[in-house]
């Protein structure tokens, strides 16, 4: 119910009760996402990793809606959870038998990867805390789909067309690479 309360109050970002509800919703989603992401990169079962990825992606959609980007949140659910995760599950099924588990990772490799990840996080945290110490979000209300459409088909029309061509090229490329000849 807390999440719903936060979503309904989205148009009044500065209200006291709404702000508390938003922060509680953020905390719940953030903890769930970080825990799921950690499980995703450490679990030995490949299918479980895909399901943990679903939780993280749904959490990202929730964060988008919390930030007032409703269209993006729905797009995230449709494209990622609806399409990309299904692609991953197909990839897992079609390569099954070669790699049921991913338990052959040596300790040294994990240690070095953890060290690199921790260093990346440390550097980014130091930079962010120093740059945006107490910066508040200033959005007055949720962004509408009409705003995004106006923006895409006026200011960002060239990148939009480039993305269209990229998707076509990727589609044809995937078919050419994966077909049996």
């Amino acid at each position, binding site marked *: 119910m807390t999440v719903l309360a936060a979503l309904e109050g989205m148009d009044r970002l500065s209200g006291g009760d709404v702000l508390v509800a938003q922060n509680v919703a953020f905390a719940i989603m953030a903890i769930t996402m970080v825990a799921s992401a950690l499980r995703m990169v450490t679990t030995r079962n490949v299918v479980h990793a895909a399901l943990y*990825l679903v939780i993280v992606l749904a959490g990202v959609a929730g964060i988008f809606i919390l930030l007032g980007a409703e269209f993006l949140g729905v797009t995230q659910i449709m494209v990622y959870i609806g399409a990309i995760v299904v692609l991953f599950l197909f990839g897992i099924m079609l390569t099954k038998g070669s790699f049921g588990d991913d338990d052959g990772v040596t300790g040294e490799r994990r240690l070095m990867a953890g060290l690199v990840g921790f260093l990346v996080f440390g550097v980014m945290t130091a930079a962010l805390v120093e740059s945006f110490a107490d910066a508040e979000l200033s959005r007055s209300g949720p962004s509408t789909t009409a705003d995004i459409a106006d923006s895409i088909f006026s*200011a960002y029309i060239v990148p939009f067309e480039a993305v269209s061509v990229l998707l076509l090229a990727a589609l044809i490329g995937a078919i050419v690479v994966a077909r049996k000849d």
Partner: protein
Amino acid sequence: MLLNQFLLLSAVLFSIGVYGVLARRNGVLLLMSIELILNAVNINLVAFAAFTDTIGGEVFALFVIAVAAAEVGVGLAMVLLLYRSSRTIDLTTVDRLRG
């Protein structure tokens, strides 16, 4: 809400994704970790769009989603090709080009 709470969440997810890319040997799991990184970047873009009260960040997040979809399609096709040619998707065994 503070801007930094979103940026720090994004940083945590990005670092976890970097760990996954470096530590995993399974090709499909590596692609999943890359998706995690791209989603962390998207949170950043949308958070800054809300911070500056502009729409550009959300549009670029949409572009990132489209590029991620294309990347997964091509990446999984390559993993399937690898599986068909060598019966494994263990990335540490893919060293045929090593001199």
